[in-house]
């Protein structure tokens, strides 16, 4: 696709947790807890009114539903500040230093005085109802490949509580993550290609990691993307957790917007106007009295209703694919779920189907007087849920006439996205008067300048030279979370740098692909594995299984892993004993094949001893044992 032609514009907001001794506005350690919470409290957040008498519509909607917010916490990771029971303490200067270092590295202009703001967020992710955030520097640029990309600003802010559950009556959060310092780097919307967007994100990620002052592991870096195409709308996609996903998310969103624009022009061709879309919800429960559809049956069994809405001129468009596996119907279903609390919708573009029969579809169309060009959407649930859901579907249909509705979406792991809320109005911010402003002196900037790490390009060259790594491996370790650990290991231990890089990058990735939680493997254990290898107490063939086992046993040590996996090294004596045993078990083969028996016998032994002894050792011992055997035979 020629992205320049369609006017693709992408802006990135990279959020990275910082490694500090304590949180941004209190002295709690930046840590998460496992296991059951020590305390629980429930709150309601009331959307506050602005001077203009306006309230965020999405926030108001959730508040009016009377949804409670349940917070879980423990005393090791949270205090009264996270509970919003005590005013914030002073801004963490260590976190400010790190942000300023990043600003200096990107030619971003530090402000003369930092002012902490409250940004209203009423989804419960902040106990206060706002996020504390401050601009540290303005402007700047970042190099990626041959190009330079403009930055808008760098902010320092507090991370939000983690959402751990959501149902109709309450949303559940853990407050441990709340208050961990986050740096936010925003680029200008000057990126015009999905791949470039991803590369810029990687470039920012490299700079952040090079400071050695950022947190690592899943969820410690998150991307928000602002994406638009000409004739579309700015869509904010939140919470992309992996850098590798960015180009796909951008590609999909581009397709989505282009197809929505196409649907809009098709509707215009069909001469459909806003006034054609009427709010008429028809109770069609009776038509499905004897239906085979499990979903409808289970609803009517609970005395719930089935309602229908006619969408004139929409036939064939609701089922049209916007991007892989997502249709306009999917977007309508998202809205129906959000505003109506129903499980989903059915529409005539996909019917008959889902055990709804042709005759049911026919009588449905008759009942709502739908012609060939019209589509019909049905939902099942309590009467008011159905009406809220269909009202939301109708609103989405009206937006389809216009093209792309501005909204906030969230990313799935496959790069697809779903509706989360209408795009809030201009961010409402007011000063956090409980935190005093901090002047940034030129002396402070000067002393921070001395802490600037070498730029990633220099570091790359150095890694290649110092550890004789090829460019691919050097890049791999530089872009991983483990550059520091790598250097520590190869400096202290007699192990091959290539083996260390491959283990810390490719091996970990491949066991992650198998579904293992690699975050459970501690740096201490990674270090320990190479210590054992360096001392000859473990063989590289055992690495893969050991890591897999440790990902399921985060508290255990590599030695315990080896024991559990029966991969403890064996002595030379023991190996000799096993080799002799194998020889006597396979006399027939040896007599037949002579020295050629070496290959098959190595196979047999490796199967049994893989990881417990080095393959070279097996080969050597076996070879001499075979020679002896043949010699004995001859004699």
């Amino acid at each position: 696709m020629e992205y320049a032609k369609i006017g693709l514009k992408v802006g990135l907001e990279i959020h990275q947790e910082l490694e500090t001794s304590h949180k941004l506005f209190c002295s709690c350690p930046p840590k998460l807890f496992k296991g059951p919470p020590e305390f629980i409290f429930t709150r309601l957040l009331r959307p506050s009114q602005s001077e203009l008498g306006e309230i965020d519509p999405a926030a108001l909607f959730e508040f009016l539903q009377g949804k409670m917010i349940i917070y879980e916490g423990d005393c090791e990771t949270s205090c009264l500040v996270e509970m919003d029971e005590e005013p914030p303490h002073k801004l963490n200067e260590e976190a400010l230093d790190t942000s300023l270092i990043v600003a200096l590295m990107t030619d971003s202009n530090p402000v003369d005085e930092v002012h902490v703001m409250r940004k209203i967020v009423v989804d419960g992710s902040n106990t206060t109802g706002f996020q504390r955030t401050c601009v540290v520097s303005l402007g700047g640029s970042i190099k990626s490949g041959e190009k330079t990309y403009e930055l808008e600003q760098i902010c320092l802010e507090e991370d939000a509580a983690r959402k751990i559950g959501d149902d109709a009556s309450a949303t559940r959060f853990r407050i441990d993550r709340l208050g961990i310092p986050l740096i936010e780097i925003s680029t200008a919307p000057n990126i015009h290609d999905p791949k470039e967007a991803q590369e810029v994100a990687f470039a920012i990620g490299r700079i952040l990691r090079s400071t050695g002052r950022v947190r690592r592991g899943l969820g410690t870096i998150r991307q928000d993307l602002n994406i638009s195409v000409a004739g579309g709308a700015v869509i904010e996609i939140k919470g992309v957790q992996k850098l590798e996903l960015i180009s796909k998310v951008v590609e999909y969103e581009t397709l989505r917007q282009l197809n929505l624009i196409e649907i809009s022009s098709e509707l215009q061709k069909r001469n459909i106007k806003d006034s054609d879309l009427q709010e008429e919800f028809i109770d069609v429960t009776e038509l499905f009295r004897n239906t085979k559809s499990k979903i409808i049956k289970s609803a009517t069994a609970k005395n719930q209703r089935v309602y229908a809405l006619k969408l004139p001129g929409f036939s064939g468009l609701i089922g049209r694919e916007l991007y892989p596996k997502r249709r306009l119907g999917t977007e309508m279903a998202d809205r129906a779920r959000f505003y109506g609390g129903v499980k989903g919708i059915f529409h005539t573009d996909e019917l008959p189907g889902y055990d709804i029969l042709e005759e049911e579809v026919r009588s449905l169309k008759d009942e709502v007087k739908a012609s060939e060009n019209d589509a019909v959407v049905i939902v099942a649930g309590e009467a008011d849920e159905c009406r809220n859901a269909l009202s939301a579907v109708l609103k989405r249909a009206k937006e389809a006439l216009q093209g792309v509705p501005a909204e906030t979406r969230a990313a799935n792991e496959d790069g697809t996205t779903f509706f989360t809320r209408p795009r809030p109005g201009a961010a409402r911010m007011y000063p956090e008067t409980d935190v005093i402003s901090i002047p940034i002196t030129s002396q402070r900037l000067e002393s921070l300048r001395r802490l600037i790490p070498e730029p990633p390009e220099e570091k790359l060259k150095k890694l290649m030279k110092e550890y004789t790594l090829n460019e691919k491996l050097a890049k791999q370790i530089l872009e991983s979370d483990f550059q520091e650990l790598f250097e520590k290991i190869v400096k202290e231990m007699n192990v091959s740098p290539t083996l260390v890089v491959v283990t810390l990058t490719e091996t970990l990735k491949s066991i992650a692909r198998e579904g293992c939680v690699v975050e459970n493997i501690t740096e201490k254990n990674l270090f320990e594995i190479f210590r054992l290898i360096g001392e000859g107490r473990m063989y590289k063939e055992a690495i893969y299984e050991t890591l897999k086992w440790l990902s399921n046993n985060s508290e255990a040590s590599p030695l315990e892993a080896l024991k559990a996996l029966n991969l403890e090294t064996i002595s030379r004596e023991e190996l000799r004993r096993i080799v002799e045993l194998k020889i006597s078990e396979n006399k027939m083969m040896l007599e037949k094949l002579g020295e050629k028996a070496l290959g098959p016998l190595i196979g047999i032994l490796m199967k049994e001893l893989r990881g417990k002894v080095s393959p070279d050792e097996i080969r050597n011992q076996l070879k001499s044992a075979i020679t002896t055997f043949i010699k004995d035979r001859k004699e």
Partner: protein
Amino acid sequence: MMNEDVLRGYRGRLREKLGSEKIGIGDLIKVEYGEKSYEGILMPRLESADEFHIVIKLKTGYNVGIAFEEDMKIVRLKEAKKPTFKPPPLPESSSDLPEISIISTGGTIASRVDYATGGVHAAISSRDLLSIVPELSEIAKVEGDILFSVFSENIEPKDWSMMAKRVADKIKSGFEGIVITHGTDTMGYSAAALSFALSSLPVPVIFVGSQRSSDRPSSDAASNLIAAVSAAAQAPFAEVVLAMHETSSDDSIVFHRGTKVRKCHTSSRYAFQSVNSKPLARFRDRRIEMIEKNFRHRGGRELILRDKFNERVALLKFHPGFNPEIIDWAVDEGYKGIILEGTGLGHVSSKCYKSIERAIHEGLIICMTSQCIWGRINMNVYSTGRELINLGVTPLEDMLTETAFVKLTWALSQSNSREEALKLMATNLAGEFSHRTLYTWK
């Protein structure tokens, strides 16, 4: 509001420069020096901040400070827009709901933020209140009334009198319940004061405050206010109480007796605790449930207003090394009574005996409470206690120190003699004593 400083917080040369450019807070300005250039709305500066930075709100909504330079160029691009508040249409109250008066004395129980300048404006009229907490219209017909607007640390005994008088007026004109909004720091004192001043009370009087200011979405103000108005409208009791959060959660508000409540935490929502008693009632799931079985019921009795307080009462906390001359000073200054907050069961050092003896001889009333907060005074256990009793010190059972102080200021103004005042002090008038000390555990 009329004479509001258009350059609030700015001082020195910077202020002169802004003034000479006719720039005021809220104006869109451009600041240029060297290669740097900023555009944004001029924001007020905090009183405590230095005089060398200009604060502007950028287009993104963020504030930043710019260091002032003599040769910097500052120009006004656009004059400030006066904030206009267009309240949403008011919900209709059903005409058969009880009529409730909300008397405001300060503290921002209801307010809205001006996002342009960050200013927080108190909402006090009933119209404002209802637009911010529309649920109130389903509970009662609400009238809003501003008595005064002060930080609660500035409230004085004469203000208790004003509050009591205003409540009496409201009751006379037919309101079926009264809510008083109050800053939390001294709300416990005011609640105790009105408990004594409003005797033979026919309707509930509910003090209410908030520990998180009402401009923030997580404020406890609205839930406390809803509970307070509900109690004023529906509660079966006719007592002076204080409505605040029971725990850190928003789902339960408790009503503490005005004479038994104390602020026990500097910042939490559950700061107020009933001491040596249980709360009177609880508001949960939109219902009021009584906890205490003995209480004064609503009824058609006539209110008796006793709204005088004698300010010449001292509250002295004893500590190791306490200088008894402080007591002598109070006597010389013409004080009429002293509450001694003693140690343990009710003790002060024997070094104080002489001064206490003299004070009582001069006609002062000296009462003893305990700095332990929880538990009851008993001055018969140790010889120190017995000697203090012999000197004429009055033990105040399990009464809160703060309540004892308020009660003594009130009792002195209600009596013609020392004996009469002492008799009042010893009589349980508003639940200030409980005769059984209950097991309290946390």
